[in-house]
């Protein structure tokens, strides 16, 4: 052997034998092992469940967060820094005349255009062509829209056609109305070829199209749309400034995933001299959204999971220490048959680590089970990040390893004689 000592091969405990001894130690007292593991089971289970439920919930929010919202950017005109308009009038709108075209040049823009709600005096009277209905009068939202805005709105046409660029550029007195306004005014889609008109305070607008709904701007209600230039000619500039509810806005339909990039570029593109006049609102980030929703709660649960793990560690440490004291006689016998202190330490450390790992495995299974059952009950798709889920049992391993360190050290330090006397 080349050693000055006994010349005998040193006692050795293989990893396999260590594992077998650890498992035997656990299996011998299944009830105690179960209780010892409980803290780790709860901790790891809570960890996996919290992360799984958070991810599953986030997946659900992402799903509900429609593609439409994800592809809509709005830009509002906050008005010029110094109001340069003569008294009683409003400044020119912040968007250039060719705003639609400029926006179209930005990568990712599907359609874009300017619109604003036309401010009408109190008691404004809406009525249809006298030929159609004598006294029908309604209060209707009147919106000024550029051709690009009409496109971005994606109206579902029932009859006729959307407002065209030509009609806008020549400030035609034409209008698009929705079906409910049409029926209230007594204009049926079938009568469109006869060019019915809507009178707003005596100004006639020929109805060129009837739409049933639109994806943007007027998605919630009903509105009569007239060309932007026509509105400027008839009613002047809208009142600028966020919060007036009358400011000119730009609605931009983007390709999926392009909204962020478009949001960054649009203001400078539209108004290079004063981009800050335009207030850009990108779509909410779905991940950020879910983060805001779940962040606090998940954090709380993770803290609870950590506390459980800590309790689990203390539980394992305590039980292992008790086991060391209780099995002092066994330690003595093992030492008497040749075990070295490191073998004794290794055995108890392996036992606590195996307990922790087993607890981690069971906890992970329970955590995954909770997520699956919860998701199934909600009819949601289970989202489990393998990066967190697969190594989760290792948390138990680490807990077991740390918890077993002190008892194992104590066991190793027990002198064989003291151990045998104690037994």
């Amino acid at each position, binding site marked *: 052997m080349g*050693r000055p*000592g*006994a*010349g*005998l*091969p*040193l*006692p*050795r*405990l293989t990893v396999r*034998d260590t594992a077998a*001894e650890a498992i*035997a130690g656990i299996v*011998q*007292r299944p009830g105690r092992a179960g209780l010892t593991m409980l803290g780790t089971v709860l901790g790891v289970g809570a960890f996996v469940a919290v992360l799984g439920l958070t991810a599953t919930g986030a997946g659900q929010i992402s799903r509900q967060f429609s593609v439409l919202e994800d592809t809509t950017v709005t830009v509002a005109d906050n008005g010029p820094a110094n109001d340069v308009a003569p008294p009683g009038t409003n400044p020119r709108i912040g968007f250039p005349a060719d705003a639609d075209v400029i926006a179209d040049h930005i990568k990712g823009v599907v359609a874009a255009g300017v619109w604003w709600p036309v401010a009408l005096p109190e008691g404004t009277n809406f009525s249809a062509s006298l030929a159609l209905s004598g006294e029908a009068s309604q209060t209707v939202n009147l919106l000024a829209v550029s051709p690009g805005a009409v496109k971005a709105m994606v109206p579902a046409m029932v009859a006729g056609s959307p407002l065209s660029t030509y009609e806008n550029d020549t400030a035609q007195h034409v209008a698009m109305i929705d079906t409910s306004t049409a029926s209230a005014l007594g204009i049926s889609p079938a009568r469109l070829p006869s060019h019915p008109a809507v009178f707003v305070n005596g100004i006639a607008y020929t109805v060129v199209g009837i739409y049933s709904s639109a994806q943007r701007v007027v998605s919630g209600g009903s509105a009569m749309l007239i060309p932007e230039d026509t509105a400027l000619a008839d009613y002047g500039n809208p009142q600028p400034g966020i919060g007036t509810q009358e400011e000119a806005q730009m609605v931009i339909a983007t390709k999926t995933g392009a909204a962020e990039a478009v949001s960054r570029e649009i203001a400078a593109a539209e108004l290079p001299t004063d981009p800050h006049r335009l207030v850009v609102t990108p779509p909410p980030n779905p991940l950020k959204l879910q983060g805001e929703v779940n962040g606090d709660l998940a954090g709380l649960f993770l803290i609870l999971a950590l506390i459980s793990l800590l309790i689990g560690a203390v539980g394992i440490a305590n039980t292992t220490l008790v086991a060391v004291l209780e099995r002092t*006689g*066994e330690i*003595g*016998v*093992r*030492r*008497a*048959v*040749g*075990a*070295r*202190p490191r*073998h004794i330490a290794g055995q108890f450390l392996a036992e606590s680590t195996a307990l922790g790992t087993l607890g981690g495995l069971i906890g992970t299974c329970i955590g995954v089970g909770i997520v699956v059952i919860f998701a199934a009950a909600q009819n949601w798709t289970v989202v489990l990040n393998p990066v967190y889920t697969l190594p989760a049992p290792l948390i138990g391993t680490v807990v077991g390893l740390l918890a077993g360190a002190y008892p194992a050290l104590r066991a190793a330090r027990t*002198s*064989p*004689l003291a151990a*045998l006397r104690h*037994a």
Partner: protein
Amino acid sequence: MTAPVIELRGLARTYPGPPPVPALRPADLVIGAGDYVAVTGPSGSGKSTLLHLLGLLDSPTAGSYLLDGLDTSKLPDRDRSALRGRRIGIVFQAFHLLAYRTALENVLLAELYNHTPRSTRLQAAAGALGAVGLGHRLDALPTTLSGGGCQRVAIARALVNQPSLLLCDEPTGNLDSRNAASLMELLDQLNSGGLTIVIITHDAAVAAHAGRTVTISDGILSERIRAGHG
């Protein structure tokens, strides 16, 4: 006399106080291979101290202990562990069997720390249990065995690594007379097979089985040479 298995030169053990207790005063003793030695003495006389020193479970405070010619008092713990595992088998009065392990597993425990493959170990353990007459109770738990059965398992465990020295601490202390007689018969057999045995007992009938009797009184070791022993 054959080559000594054990050679004690002024071996002494004093437990630190206060006040210090000289449990074993400087003692000289030579035990040859195949010797069968009984150590007798009243309670507290230092018998167990001697056994623990011989079993390398404790270290002397003075003197030296040569096992198979090797001075153990200068060895580090790892080598003392190796010697305990390979050269010494110890049988305790209280058996010290693991209650949750079968007879076979209890014997296997003694082989756990040496370098043999599991199949060899199993074979040796079963063989050792067979040699003590328990070949048919390999899977019995200690709780289902009689005191005599448990002591036989303990002897099988002590012998499985084929030690050169078997130390027995009051091996019949927890046994009834019938089991005790049967156990002593077994030890006699083992000794006649060449095994060196040191047995600690306060029972004169047990000591009578041994060829030599060493007495300890107040930590002083003395040997009475029996006439006609050969």
